[in-house]
């Protein structure tokens, strides 16, 4: 089945140690998104790609970076994780306006 896959499902990292989360899709969707979701809150958009065009949200910390080497893959890099970055990170894809998102299962990041 076509889907959005996030690896790993759970990630533990040390305070200040760079970490990369990955997302892949078999849907061939143009748009890929990274959201941060803290417990019982709405997802917060960090950035998204429309094809190769990168769109950063104004309030996304500089600590967060992203790469999209091809249509299928997208990475979230956290350069120096702090305790406040512990959260669920959701990857989503979309065909475009009006189609809604297909979400991955998320990566739960713990910072120790």
């Amino acid at each position, binding site marked *: 089945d076509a889907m959005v896959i996030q690896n790993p499902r759970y990630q533990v990292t040390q305070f200040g140690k760079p970490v990369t989360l990955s997302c892949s899709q078999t849907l061939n969707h143009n748009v890929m998104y990274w959201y941060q979701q803290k417990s019982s809150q*709405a997802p917060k*958009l960090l950035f998204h790609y*429309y094809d190769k065009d990168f769109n950063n949200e104004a309030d996304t910390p500089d600590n967060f970076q992203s790469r999209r080497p091809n249509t299928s893959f997208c990475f979230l890099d956290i350069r120096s994780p702090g305790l406040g970055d512990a959260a669920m990170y959701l990857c989503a894809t979309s065909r475009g*306006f*009006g189609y*809604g998102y*297909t979400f*991955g299962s998320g990566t739960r990041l713990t910072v120790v």
Partner: protein
Amino acid sequence: AQTVTQSQPEMSVQEAETVTLSCTYDTSESDYYLFWYKQPPSRQMILVIRQEAYKQQNATENRFSVNFQKAAKSFSLKISDSQLGDAAMYFCAFHGSGNTGKLIFGQGTTLQVKP
């Protein structure tokens, strides 16, 4: 700027009964879509139902239906014959033509289903 408001942080319903989750939104756009997403505990967020603003007919997907009131900017979700598997957090979301593909989520409503 668009906003989405879910005024019910928590709701509960008895199994087999009907429950309605509320959502209001604010926008000046005329072309947009509205969605309800379901997020079970520790599980993937999935699309429940989708409504196009230009369509007056309310969307329906099996036991899930919406009451879309465009003038009032209201978009409620009705779940009929509630099942234990319906227990989840439900998010209302807005997608406008002018906001570069970004979904704007409400704060969420946690639905508890009692056996």
